[in-house]
């Protein structure tokens, strides 16, 4: 019988589920003409409550429901991270949805449901739970990607995401089946001793490979990245913000937990794969991003490149590496959501202006937005005093610690290549004369401003006082033992 403590440990998931259900009910009860902003505000409150709930759950941390779920620092870190991503994504949605005449309650409910899945994922301590969490999160995200259902690009994005995503999930499930066959358990702490005892090592190798494919798809690592540019480009901008940061962070969290907890005994088998995958991902992402005229597509490739950096931290296979990964994902979430907030704001109805060149002269027409965007871009480049810099710094430090000197050097050179395409946006915003798109843009609404300022402040705080987050990350990275 589950005890009260079990429910407390699942508090954020419960809050989000209930809030999502309430929004669905209210939506049905509301008249057609009423603005749905109220539901959006309600979802913001629910998200804040869920964040508080995560902290409460952490204070009463421990395994729950017979070890299906574990609430430790690691889980809490990612719960708060994905909830934060949800918060900033909802903030940038109001104006966007009104503009597209699609401001309905389902949108907010879907975001909450997707977050439920991600919270389950990051706190799962058992492979079936991982799978369930992944599915909850993914299905909600498939729907979100097609939220403007009359838009062809939305349709394409969603179908692509759905087909390839299901395929990847199948790989994951198949891997789970193999590991169950090999060790007779799906519990992460249970698999480890079995492997340490040397039971079913070859089967476990196949299982690890299959599961890695599944996760690699979710984090858009090469060679499973093909979907990401099309999906991020096609989906509505706030949704792209959400799904390029939240599910990705959750997938990385699970990947690390599974591979460090369960597959640690066979690290020699999977580490070379992660290593080469990291290198390829950085290179493909960065070089493909160089020539993209569409910002959303460019950010998609850049997010692939960032996945590459993060995989470097996985390849380092150390606690410092895990802490670096956690820090990087937090930094990345702020940057990515903030950058998409600028697009949500700037693109206008039907996402008319989503090319880099459209931003011409924005620096002189909307100096505040451009300045905030500049901070985010500098953070993407990795200029010191921004979160992106410390993220890269910790990751490459972990890599050097682990003796991956060449991977670190190639990664650093990659980040110099990346500077080029981020600089291109700066060039356009400040060095070109304002064009039609910048001239006609209205001042940003309050919600967008909060989203932007929130991401920029997060970026700066992590960049100037990284200890705030890093200490907690270091503390909670020790879950493997």
């Amino acid at each position, binding site marked *: 019988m589950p005890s009260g403590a079990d429910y407390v440990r699942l508090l954020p998931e419960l809050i989000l589920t209930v809030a999502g259900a309430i929004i669905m009910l209210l939506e049905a009860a509301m008249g057609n003409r009423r603005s749905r902003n109220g539901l959006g505000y309600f979802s913001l409150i629910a998200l804040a409550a869920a964040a508080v709930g995560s902290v409460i759950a952490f204070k009463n941390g421990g395994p729950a429901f017979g070890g299906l779920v574990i609430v430790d620092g690691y889980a809490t870190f990612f719960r708060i991270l994905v909830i934060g991503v949800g918060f900033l994504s909802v903030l940038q949605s109001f104006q966007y949805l009104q503009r597209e005449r699609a401001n309905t309650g389902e949108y907010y409910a879907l975001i909450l449901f997707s977050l439920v899945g991600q919270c389950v994922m990051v706190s799962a301590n058992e492979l079936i739970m991982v799978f369930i969490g992944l599915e909850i999160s993914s299905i909600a995200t498939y729907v979100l990607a097609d939220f403007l259902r009359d838009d062809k690009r939305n349709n394409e994005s969603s179908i692509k995401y759905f087909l390839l995503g299901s395929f990847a999930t199948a790989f994951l499930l198949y891997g789970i089946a193999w590991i169950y066959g090999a060790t007779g358990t799906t519990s992460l702490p249970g698999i480890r001793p079995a492997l340490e005892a040397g039971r079913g090592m070859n089967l476990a190798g196949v299982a690890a490979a299959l599961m890695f494919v599944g996760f690699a798809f979710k984090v858009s690592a090469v060679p499973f990245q093909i979907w990401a540019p099309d999906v991020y480009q096609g989906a509505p901008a706030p949704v792209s913000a959400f799904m390029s940061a939240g599910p990705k962070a959750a997938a990385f969290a699970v990947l690390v937990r599974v591979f460090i907890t369960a597959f640690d005994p066979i690290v020699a088998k999977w580490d070379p794969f992660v290593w080469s995958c990291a290198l390829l991902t950085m290179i493909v992402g960065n070089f493909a991003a160089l020539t993209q005229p569409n910002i959303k597509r460019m950010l998609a490739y850049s997010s692939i490149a960032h996945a590459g950096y993060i995989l470097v931290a996985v390849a380092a296979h150390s606690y410092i590496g895990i802490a670096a990964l956690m820090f990087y994902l937090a930094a990345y979430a702020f940057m990515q959501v903030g950058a998409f907030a600028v697009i949500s704001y700037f693109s206008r109805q039907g996402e008319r202006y989503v090319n880099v060149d459209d931003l011409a002269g924005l620096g002189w027409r909307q100096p505040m937005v451009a300045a905030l965007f500049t901070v985010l871009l500098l953070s993407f480049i990795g*200029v*010191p005093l921004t979160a992106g810099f410390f993220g890269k710094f910790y990751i490459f430090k972990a890599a050097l610690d682990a003796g991956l000197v060449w991977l670190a050097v190639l990664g650093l050179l990659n980040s110099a290549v990346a500077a*080029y395409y981020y600089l291109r946006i700066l060039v356009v915003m400040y060095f070109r004369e304002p064009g039609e798109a910048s001239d006609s843009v209205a001042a940003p609404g309050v919600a967008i401003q909060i989203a932007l300022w929130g991401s920029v402040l997060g970026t700066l705080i992590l960049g100037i006082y990284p200890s705030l987050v890093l200490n907690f990350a270091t503390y909670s990275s020790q879950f493997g033992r």
Partner: protein
Amino acid sequence: MNLLTVVLALPLLAFLVAILLPKDIPGLSRLFALGTSLIVFAVSLGLIAPFWFHTPHGWAFETDLNWIDSPRIHYHVAIDGVSLWLILLTTLLTPICVLLSWRYIDKHVREFYAFLLLLEFGLIGVFCSLDLFLFYVFWEVALVPMYFLIGVWGYDRRIYAAVKFFLYTMAGSVLMLGAIIYLYNQAGGTFDYVEILRQFQVGQLGLSSQAELLLFLAFFIAFAIKVPLFPLHTWLPDAHVEAPTAGSVMLASVMLKMGTYGLLRFCLPLFPAAAHECSSWIVTLAIIGIIYGALVAMVQPNMKKLVAYSSVSHLGFVVLGLFSFTQAGMDGAVYQMLNHGISTGALFLLVGFLNERRHSLEISAYGGVAAVAPGLARAFMITMLASIGLPMLNNFVGEFLVLQGAALADFKWAVFAAIGVILSACYMLWLYQRVFFGRASADLQHHMYDLNLREWACIVPLIVMMVWMGCFTQSFMPSITTSTAGILEKTRTNLEIHVRRTPPARSVLEARVAR
């Protein structure tokens, strides 16, 4: 509060205020920038105090505060005799840059001055950081405002130049970052320059010769790009030509010194064996740069490009002096860093004045300026003579010491480098002849006018410095010598061979240091 921290913090505060000033009152931004940069300069003069009467051997104005726990990063700043003068060079040139842009910059005035102040902050930080990590932070911070200065307020090909400038520096500095992290791990978790040096000296930290060579190269390439050393110099002419005058001045006078300062402060004492090992080809590149820069300068039709290539040549002298591993060479190198800052800064400034009048950088557009603008011609004459290395003016002292040091190390080096001195006279005098002598065309007479009060205020301090540094070397040299002697001593820790070649003259210098 520590004076150095005040000097460092003031430009940052000024930047934050400047960016918030009202957009549509450009005059206010100008006055604010001028006022604050003058205040910073006045305050920074206080930094001389401990160096004036007796030269301290260690660090002055040291502050060491905890910034980040893990990895252990400290806000550790202090100055010695070398950083002191580089900081003063920065704080002197910033108000001059504000003043010289007074009329010329008429769009986005507020942002221009804000970036200038941010640049000052970054540059001062570079010259006083004693924590490798902090150094890297400032190194990159200085990059961003310069990128904007070139990109927004530059000439036609500004975007190309700005991006090239950024990417060149970035590519070099990421490797340096890798080396810094590696060093941190080896040194048991510290970025502190003083601490790492101590560990090297007591033998607590040892590197294999291969690792030392790679680390040296990682630092060296980052600095060599910035210097710039032949063949990594190609970004420089582009950046200089496209930058607005103030940008060119700051770039040539101060930013290039980041590279040579880094070589002196980090490359030599941290990796002495590798530095010795590579010195022969580095010196070769430096000499190629001296001669190549001078030859290319000679054939430039564009004044700014001419001065830019002359920078490549002059900076070659600095690198030559540093890698001669002699006291005279090092002193000369540091002195030459300052000289180049003053005289090349002044040249860019005067070229900027010419351009503001005639709206052309082509030498062929001029001729006979001396007849129309005698004051401008005189100022240019003194600056040009200083740049050539006329005795009693600043560059002479630096070039002399560098050549002396090079001759002590290997006489051939001095012979080849001296060719560069001769060539510099050729291209400068020829430039002067073509621009200022001859008959002034009617068009030129119509546009050209003499220096006004504001412009005199820009150029006079620099001319005063040229004469002062040329005649009263003793005002600057003792503090420089003390610092370079200390650095030179560290480069000898595990090498004896160059000690044999040390001339008797060095002991005189050392005796003075000891006193």
